[in-house]
């Protein structure tokens, strides 16, 4: 079986590699032949877990591929014996085809094509229609998700805003550039004083002026429910406004995959989208509770400071500063301190916030896409406003609990601020190498 599994993987990998170099450049459809099988004996050596992975890259140009949502998307279940080989293929194809299709629809950078050669009306197409007054027909998933996103933007008081496409691109460039520098002297950042940094500061100020607020975006995007079209109107005299679904798209896809797998009775595992968007589909087959490790917020170490246990269905979303970031050294009173510039942006300030290192949210009632956006919203919510925010969400969306992580300046203590409802299910991991401390919120 082990050999067969590997052969399947090798054969499918080889098929993909050989098939993409020639012929018609149509990479939009998801075919059975491209499904790979990444389970095999990995699970057998890791406590009997099945791990069904999404290893099918999407071709974005003649020379480049990417993974759906640039993430490892995994279905995992326990124990191993509960899934036979046909089921594993079924799971992989079911979730793989959803991730594949939705990535293409939500992508704002690349064009994709249907089997018949027509262009998929994705987010890129919609962004290109900005200011042209042309109504663009989009697929139902994209249509629905844009509506949800606009509404969340308004309800969150602009803490979440999909109109930050240009701002996001600005910070993406800085993060990539700075991560490739050997010395801090070569860094570019709006807070620094070198020539390039001054230009960056100017550009950031301009972008801050050009981003419509969530309230303004509501009027810029005209939805026609009958025709399923969207018209992206001009904002003031701004040359370019672009939408991004970076803070919600993967959550939506994970939610859709979870629905499809539950319908097929694979509801004893979980789906993980690179740990930021996750759905525990139901109870584990061995009836033991889910045990979720919450890693320490320190960059240098990935030890577990605590863990949460619970039973059954749960949506879990996390946002933090540990990925796609850089440390920016700042001189203050003769002392060098570091601030973290990361990819979770506050649309109101145009910059990333440092209120928390990481936010992890749990809910058994709120959908995966909304939870995805909520973890961004929480990262942009001051601690003194958290109680009000939780109360609003519980009233309007359903139950929600959270863990907010911080640390002291020396990075020797990891603080876990835990909401009331998790009091009995959160445990500090005594075997953690760092010192972790738990504090409980009153709400």
């Amino acid at each position, binding site marked *: 079986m*082990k050999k067969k599994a*590997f052969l399947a*993987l*090798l054969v499918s*990998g*080889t098929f993909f*590699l050989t098939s993409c170099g020639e012929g018609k450049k149509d990479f939009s459809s998801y075919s059975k032949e491209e499904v790979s099988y*990444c389970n*095999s*004996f*990995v699970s*057998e*050596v*890791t*406590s009997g*877990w099945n791990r069904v992975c999404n*290893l099918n*890259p999407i071709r974005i140009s003649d020379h480049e591929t990417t993974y759906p949502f640039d993430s490892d998307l995994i279905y*995992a279940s*326990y124990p191993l014996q509960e899934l036979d080989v046909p089921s594993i293929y079924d799971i992989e194809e079911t979730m793989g085809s959803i991730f594949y299709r939705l990535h293409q629809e939500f992508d704002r950078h690349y064009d994709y094509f249907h089997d018949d050669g027509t262009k998929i009306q994705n987010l890129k197409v919609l962004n290109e229609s900005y200011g042209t007054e042309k109504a663009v027909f989009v697929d139902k998933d994209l249509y629905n998700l844009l509506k949800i996103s606009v509404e969340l933007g308004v309800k969150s008081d602009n803490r979440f805003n999909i109109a930050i496409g240009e701002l996001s691109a600005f910070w993406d460039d800085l993060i990539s550039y700075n991560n490739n520098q050997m010395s801090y002297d070569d860094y570019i950042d709006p807070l620094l004083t070198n020539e390039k940094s001054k230009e960056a500061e100017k550009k950031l100020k301009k972008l801050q002026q050009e981003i419509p607020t969530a309230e303004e975006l509501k009027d810029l995007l005209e939805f026609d429910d009958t025709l399923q079209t969207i018209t992206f109107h001009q904002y003031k005299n701004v040359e370019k406004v672009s939408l991004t679904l970076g803070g919600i798209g993967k959550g939506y896809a994970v939610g859709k995959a979870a629905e499809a797998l539950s319908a097929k009775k694979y509801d004893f595992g*979980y789906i*993980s989208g690179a*740990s*930021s968007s*996750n759905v*525990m589909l139901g109870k*584990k087959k061995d009836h033991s509770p*889910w*045990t*979720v*490790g*919450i*890693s320490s917020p320190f960059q*240098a*170490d*990935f*030890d*577990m400071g605590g*863990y949460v246990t619970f039973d059954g269905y749960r949506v*879990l979303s*996390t946002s933090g500063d540990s990925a796609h970031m850089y440390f920016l050294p700042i001189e203050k009173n003769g002392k060098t301190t570091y601030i973290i510039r990361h990819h979770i942006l506050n649309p109101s300030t145009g910059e990333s916030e440092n209120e928390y290192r990481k936010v*992890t949210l749990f809910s058994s009632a709120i959908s995966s896409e909304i939870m995805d956006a909520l973890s961004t919203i929480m990262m942009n919510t001051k601690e003194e406003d958290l109680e009000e925010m939780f109360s609003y969400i519980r009233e309007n969306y359903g139950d929600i609990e959270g863990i907010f992580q911080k640390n002291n300046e020396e990075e020797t203590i990891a603080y876990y601020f835990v909401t009331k409802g998790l009091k009995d299910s959160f445990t500090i*991991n005594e*075997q953690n*190498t760092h010192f972790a401390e738990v504090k409980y919120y009153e709400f």
Partner: protein
Amino acid sequence: MNFKLKLAKIDIFIISILTVLSLVLGLFIYFVPKDSGKSVAIYIEGKMEYSLSLEEDQTLALHPGEYNKSTNTYPSLLGEMVIEIKDKSVRVEKEDSPLHVCSKQGWVSIPNFPVTCAPNYVVVVIESTDATNFDFVV
């Protein structure tokens, strides 16, 4: 009927021994430091070939060729593979495969989260005897 429990000397002796043993065992469990017991297991073609300490910084070079454990040579490898352990983390630093999935995965320091080099038939995983095993980590 009226029974009176009468303990023989041997009974008292056995009870005393058991009591002392329980106390010693209890104290041992309480005071002996808990060993996190983390090691890096390297599986090649499904068989555990190496178990390395996670506490010790080290590298292991594996080579393609006819099976010979003493020279770290394995037929399933597509090319040279280097596994590095540093600061209680492990990564596959170098390997040959079409997509380089496992070397791209980078450093791992969590038990039971494997680095999988499928085309090479190699899995690197931190194994732990810790009481707490996580189903999932965020």
